[in-house]
């Protein structure tokens, strides 16, 4: 029976979607069966982060009763499975988010972890995601407005009978005025799984010809390493950091030449790539 975990923050812009994607990939890299669900039904963008924005069947279709959930599960990076939400505003208006629980229950045996990327706020769609989950992880920035909102999110989860298991602090810059990990633990009465530093590599991962999560592109960056630690803690595994391929100065300098002599990898059929590999 898989663990269904909602990633929640209350406040928008704290990095919930990024944390969900990176955490899911980090868990998948530890050979766990992971499914990411874009439960932000109104403002879905997890698919953009995973570069899987053209998925023909989405969670919207499933919640509308027009498609089977199995047809909305796609192969994502590093073996992670992904259920996207649609980008259509019209369908969003028609969707019955209260069906989310039964949809998730029907697939929970297929995975070790099902991570739900929730919307900001505590509106109906967020409540549906919380109610459909067994556990909640709160994501916050080390600032007071963000903490105020996770407090409300924690109370909401408690009201709906979902267990809040921990906090991930994101965008940590170690500035004087930041709220520290110990303060967060004391205020929220929860363990802090990770303090993810502000890392420009995350921002840059959106600025590529082919958008790719940093856990794939550069797993050795400080933010990715911290998320790998959080994944290990969450799964109860020993911490093994994948730092990716590290190149020294000379290796980087001569890489254009050495690449000429390397055997070219087989070309991946794009039509069967991230989008169609159901």
């Amino acid at each position, binding site marked *: 029976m898989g663990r269904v975990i909602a990633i929640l923050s209350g406040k928008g812009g704290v990095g919930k979607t990024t944390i969900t994607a990176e955490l899911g990939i980090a868990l998948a890299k530890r050979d766990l069966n992971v499914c990411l669900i874009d439960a932000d039904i109104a403002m879905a963008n997890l698919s953009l982060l995973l570069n899987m924005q053209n998925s023909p069947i989405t969670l919207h279709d499933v919640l509308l009763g027009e498609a089977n959930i199995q047809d909305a599960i796609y192969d994502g990076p590093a073996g992670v499975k992904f259920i996207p939400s649609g980008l259509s505003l019209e369908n969003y208006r028609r969707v019955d988010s*209260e069906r989310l629980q039964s949809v998730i229950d029907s697939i929970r045996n297929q995975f070790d972890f099902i991570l739900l990327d929730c919307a900001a706020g505590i509106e*109906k769609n967020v409540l549906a995601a919380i109610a459909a989950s067994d556990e909640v992880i709160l994501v916050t920035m080390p600032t007071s407005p963000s*903490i105020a909102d996770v*407090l409300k999110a924690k109370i909401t989860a408690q*009201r709906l009978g979902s267990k809040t298991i921990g906090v991930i602090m994101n965008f940590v810059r170690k500035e*004087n*005025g930041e709220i520290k990990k110990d303060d967060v633990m*004391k205020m*929220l009465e929860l363990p802090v799984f990770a303090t993810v530093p502000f890392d420009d590599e995350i921002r840059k991962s959106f600025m590529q010809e082919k958008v790719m999560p940093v856990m794939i592109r550069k797993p050795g960056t400080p933010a990715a390493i911290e998320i790998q630690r959080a994944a290990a803690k969450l799964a109860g595994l020993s911490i093994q950091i994948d730092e990716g391929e590290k190149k020294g100065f000379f290796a980087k300098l001569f890489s254009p030449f050495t690449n000429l002599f390397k055997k070219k990898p087989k070309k991946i059929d794009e039509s069967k790539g991230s989008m169609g590999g159901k």
Partner: protein
Amino acid sequence: MIKLLNDVKNFFRAVAAKVLDLDDTVKPEQHLKLFEDYLDKFEFDTNTKDVRKFLSVLTKKHLVDDIVISTMTGSSIASVNGNAVSTAISGAALFNYVQSEHPKSESVLIKNGRGWSILFPQNDKLFIVKASSELSMIELRALTKEINGFLTKSVPGSMGVKG
């Protein structure tokens, strides 16, 4: 002498901070103080055997004004104020009428003045909830799940409990 050195040091530090625009942020202690007891206000002790006390705590936890539980035929099972006979009868009559006209209806929402009355059947019981805003089905289910859990655990043959 030491005080003088400290004053000089502080002076140069202040000048340097001004000129170099150094990080002068500090932790918002007032906010932290505000948050410190925030969660305590939302700690709800539902560990009681008194049904009225339990429902009273639930009204605060689920942000509603009143809860009445009745049978589908209008007999009052339990309520917050202990006197809900007329609410139970009229609630059950109303819900049964609506369901006879709309057999698939899952709940009835009535906007009355400043608040809402919500009729929600579950496990052969009718939950009549009054609140200042309408509750989603998800919130109603969470509320009724707790009540059903309490009735099953605390009151054997729960249908017989009088409000």
